[in-house]
């Protein structure tokens, strides 16, 4: 089954508000569970790319159902990444504002990919209403990715850093 088929299947199933769906055929096994408010709880092996796509402002209109489905997937995956056996921890923005990687223009960034960080260490600054808010790491570990460009605006809950916790 291709990713596309799986996605189609999910949308179709959501469109028909099914609670559970299970299919097993020649090696492939898929199981989809959906609660009445259309939150896909677990979608196996969706690429990280999907959430961003799905979360981006809806350009070409889709049916509300589709939007819901897509968004639900996005959230599901994000959460999963955050929980996935503690494999990766996602640092999300607690406020709306502008993202800065360094204390002032031209200065050294607080952290870069590959750096090891300690709990409480400053990762970045988010400017909101002329106030500089330092964002600290909640984990000890290694910075594996930085999702936002320096100077870019961030929304509440937007992903900032991925950190691989040490041990």
């Amino acid at each position, binding site marked *: 089954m291709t990713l596309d088929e799986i996605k189609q299947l999910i949308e179709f199933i959501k469109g028909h508000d099914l609670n559970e769906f299970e299919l097993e055929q020649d090696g492939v096994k898929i199981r989809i569970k959906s609660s009445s408010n259309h939150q896909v709880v677990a979608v196996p092996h969706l690429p990280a790319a999907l959430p961003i796509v799905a979360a981006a402002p809806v350009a070409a209109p889709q049916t*509300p159902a589709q939007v819901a489905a897509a968004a639900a997937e996005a959230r599901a995956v994000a959460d999963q990444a955050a929980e996935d056996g503690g494999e990766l921890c996602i640092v999300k923005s607690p406020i709306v504002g502008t993202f800065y990687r360094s204390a002032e223009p031209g200065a050294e960034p607080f952290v870069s990919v590959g750096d090891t960080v300690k709990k409480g260490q400053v990762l970045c600054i988010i400017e909101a209403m002329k106030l500089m808010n330092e964002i600290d790491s909640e984990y000890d570990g290694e910075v594996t990715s930085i999702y936002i460009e320096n100077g870019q605006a961030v929304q509440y809950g937007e992903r900032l850093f991925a950190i691989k916790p040490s041990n």
Partner: protein
Amino acid sequence: MFKKILVANRGEIALRVIFACRELGIKTVAVYSEADENSLHVRFADEDICIGPARSSDSYLNVPAIISAAEITGADALHPGYGFLSESAYLAEVCEACHIRFIGPDPNVIRLLGDKAKARRAMKKAGVPMLPGSDGPVESEERATKIAQQIGYPVIIKAVAGGGGRGMRIVKQPADLPHAFKTAQREAESAFGVGDVYIEKYLESPRHIEFQILGDHHGNVVHLGERECSIQRRHQKLLEESPSVAVSDKVRRKMGALVVDAARAVQYTNAGTFEFLMDEKGNFYFMEVNTRVQVEHPVTEMVTGIDIVKEQIRVAAGARLGFKQSEVTFTGHAMECRINAEDPETFVPSPGMIHAFSVPGGPGVRVDTAAHSECLISPYYDSMVAKVIVHGRDRQESIARMRRVLEMSVVEGIRTTIPLHLKILNDPDFIAGRLSTHFMERFAAKPKTQPLAETA
């Protein structure tokens, strides 16, 4: 004119503002909580910013988040809608400080009229008729008796700190006053920690009549006539109409002129509503001024043909009102029913997924809603699902029209107040226009005249 307006609200009113902006060629920014990620105001705004979690205090009431959203998107104005921060003088001030135009009155005006006592004084000074009473707390039983005699029975004793019925006593005759006064004080004490009570004239069966005004920054103020909102439950309006059967052209002109003068007296700008109680003899008594667009503004739009939200935006941008008082005309009769996600008998909220949503159109029908098939009515915010507004040549046609629209509406998956509205629309007193703010009590008491057709 503005380039980009941030809509600091959600649901149908956020959409309503987006409608106006699109018609004026202004870009829009939606802000939303995580619970509203998939709602239509987010979908149809040009940009959208998530400002917090579902809880209102962390999102739609979160001033820093909203201001930051305006800053990072470069919005040059902000429309607060109704509810949430729409009457927050603080938000209006922060906007000013950040060079974002707040689409509403000046912060000082919002603050003045937001303070019950100050507002009463200002309006009294401006010649607005007040409910006779003891301005301020009454200490002694003797004072109470004196005041009651002056204003005449029946009177009502209310807790200064009060609200919600506690520490409230209606007194029909002098003999009952002493006891009532004491109990009111005791209840106030226990309920609010402050025993202070005040006395007001009590109206047996008042109507709720309100006047819509619009003012620009060039000293022009007009009124758009009245709305009757007597059909309410626990001070929640359920059904509104314009014109009111109880207001003649003469009274409309007189009261209209009065509120326009009062608005001028406080340098009122943008949209506002003067709320009054009206007694059986047709006397008006000031209640309060709402310094924002109201849920029920569409009934006024239907009878006047004026787009109130567009005018709010235009005057906020410094434009003059698009018309003079003499150009405001009233055609036919309009009525609005608020369709809430509630049990029509118990009023228990009924959030959830709407599986089928269809409201018929046809002549004289307007529907303001953010709902659609397969949309989720979240439990975090108010329960209003849609506003159904009809316009007819007269009240009779409005009622017939509203009835057929509600009978033919389909809302599946949640319970709604549509059956309740159908009961109201079939009630002889309602049809005869015998309304008062007590209507719903009497009504709820009544035996069902007909089974609730489960139309939705």
